[in-house]
């Protein structure tokens, strides 16, 4: 394998990965902060660097509808969106998953209106949680590049055939220029061979897909989809294992950072994990027993891995970059549920922060950990802390 180090904006690295994946069809609509991804793909197609059909649709609803069509005839299909665009796609997302169409989508995560806000948080990913898509979070441009390639291999695997989202924090990842290792075409071709959808629409073998199912079959359809999504974890692990062998970059559903000997663990997802790592380094150098767990795989939710990573720990502080209005914050809610049946349950505190592009600095993370420990000491762990809110 040859690997080239390139200084490039993460969005463009995602486009490069899509090009290396030799995608057949791209259907997309512009929305901040995703636009650079589809603009650069349009340019690659126009320049003849990428032999694909580029469909400049008139809305995200149509983007996903077009992806549904192209994927249904067996074409390797990519799109990208964010925020309002993702939620405008919603009804089609669920159909794409139920039709078992391995569409790959990069989401440059952004807040949802209103108020209108173009900056990053995880609201769009969280509201898409139950759509049947595999969802992976990344922390930097390199991971965005890597996971875009992995996503095609995972989604198109004959035992998976599920659409896959790579969550790339808007601006904090999408617009940052980083040194990124690119893979060469031959390595990608070996990692990601051409695929054939087993049930692609063809007049020679006519089938109807997506027809209606009554009460006698709807439950079974949902069970089948749920099983497929849960069992996709096996292929995800295999894919990351293989990718690690090729590149030396190891990915896991739940990744631990200096958690040995920690009695307090902070849990983050996405780009803020990198700031959190700096904080852990600093706090540990001061003798504090704090570690970090980063959640990479959001769907299917890695129950076993999260339990393994945090059971037996005294305190767990979960940072959500999304709010569930009137309910528990989504990531913390999952982690509490995962831990409920375990014997050595940690105290768990939920913190919501980093909404609508508000930064959380390494210094802020120190405050977050302190606030969390304080909350646990006060015994009021059922209360969610809104970090940095001006009341």
């Amino acid at each position, binding site marked *: 394998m040859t690997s080239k180090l390139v200084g490039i904006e993460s969005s463009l690295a995602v486009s490069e990965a899509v090009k290396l994946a030799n995608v057949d069809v791209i259907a997309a609509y512009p929305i901040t902060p995703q636009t650079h991804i589809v603009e650069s793909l349009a340019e690659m197609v126009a320049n003849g660097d990428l032999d694909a059909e580029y469909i400049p649709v008139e809305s995200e609803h149509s983007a996903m509808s077009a992806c549904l069509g*192209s994927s249904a005839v067996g074409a390797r299909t990519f799109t990208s969106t964010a925020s309002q665009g993702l939620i405008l796609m919603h009804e089609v997302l669920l159909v794409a998953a139920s039709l078992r169409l391995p569409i790959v989508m990069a989401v440059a995560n952004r807040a949802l209106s209103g108020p209108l806000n173009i900056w990053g948080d995880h609201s769009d990913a969280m509201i898409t949680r139950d759509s049947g898509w595999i969802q992976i979070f990344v922390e930097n441009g390199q991971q965005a590049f890597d996971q875009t390639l992995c996503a095609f291999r995972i989604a198109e695997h004959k035992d998976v055939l599920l659409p896959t989202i790579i969550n790339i924090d808007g601006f904090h990842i999408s617009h940052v220029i980083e040194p990124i290792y690119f893979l060469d075409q031959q390595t990608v071709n070996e990692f990601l061979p051409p695929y054939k959808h087993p049930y692609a629409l063809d007049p020679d*073998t006519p089938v109807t897909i997506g*027809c209606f199912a009554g009460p006698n079959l709807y439950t079974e359809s949902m069970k089948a989809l749920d099983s497929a999504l849960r069992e996709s974890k096996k292929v995800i692990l295999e894919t990351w294992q293989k990718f690690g062998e090729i590149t030396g970059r190891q990915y896991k559903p739940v990744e631990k950072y200096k958690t040995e000997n920690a009695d307090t663990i902070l849990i983050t997802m996405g780009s803020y994990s990198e700031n959190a790592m700096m904080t852990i380094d600093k706090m540990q150098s001061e003798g504090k027993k704090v570690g970090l767990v980063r959640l990479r795989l959001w769907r299917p939710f890695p129950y076993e891995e999260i339990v393994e990573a945090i059971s037996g720990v005294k305190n767990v502080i979960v940072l959500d970059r999304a709010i569930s209005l009137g309910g528990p914050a989504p990531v913390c809610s999952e982690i509490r549920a995962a831990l409920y049946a375990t014997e050595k349950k940690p105290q768990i505190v939920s913190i919501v922060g980093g909404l609508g592009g508000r930064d959380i600095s390494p210094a802020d993370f120190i405050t977050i950990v302190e606030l969390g420990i304080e909350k646990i000491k006060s015994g009021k762990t059922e209360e969610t802390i809104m970090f940095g809110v001006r009341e």
Partner: protein
Amino acid sequence: MKTNAVNLIEQEWILPGNRTCPGCALSLAYRHTLKALEGQCIVTVPASCATVLHGMYPITAVNVPCVNTPFASTGASATGLVAGLKALGKKGITVLAFAGDGGTHDIGIQSLSGAAERQNDFIYMCYDNEGYMNTGNQRSGSTPLGAVSGTTPVLGKQQYQKDMTAIMEAHGLPYVATCSASYPLDLYEKVKKARTIEGTRFIHVHTPCPPGWLFPFSDTIRIGEMAVETGLVVLYEIEDGIFRLTSASESLALKGGTLQPVREYFISQGRFKTITEEQIDELQNWVNARWKHCLHRATNL
């Protein structure tokens, strides 16, 4: 050679035992459409009566590949099917989008307009039963003035139908046409012609609906014929901007152009039970003006 009942292709792509209501004009229109495409097509169908026709999992009555899409997705899903086939180098397959009037005039207009503006290469057929019949007859953008429906009770609809074919013509399409299920050979010829043309092709089909329009199941064909004879439906095609009257509308024009009064059509259906004399007069004037316009435009008289 012109197609007639004797030399029409015998093979069927809608198999016996579909789920449409008795007297359904949509199944007739669909049947002849698939014949004209000789089954060499991939169909995209939004939630509609056509979904019901296709059947309930795991059984389907239709012997062509089909994807059922969300209601507003039809045009864009057709775009995707076309792009996918092109990317994979598959040739000779026509993509057919087959949607009702609600899915075309109302909720699907954006994705259809987008696809037409992009000149994506597929046939879009709107089967128009003039309302949301699959949900039990509610008003759509194609429900006619004076028609009572679930959401235009008592007084009936107070607005005119949206002229979808004119809207699609305004997109500069290479081929737009109107048809009626009561004239299946005209429909067959138009689909056959559309099949050979590249770009977005729009075909509107008038499909009377016995349970929605409240007329006897046995009268479907007659009701469709009356719509054409009265000029409420005009059969025409516009190929590269050239307007031609076809079939019964062409014959009517060639025989002097006298239409039957619209009153008979309104009396024939329960949905017009509360239409007023003023509304009938208004509609007669509207039909007369449009017919005059069509006669003026027609290049084949």
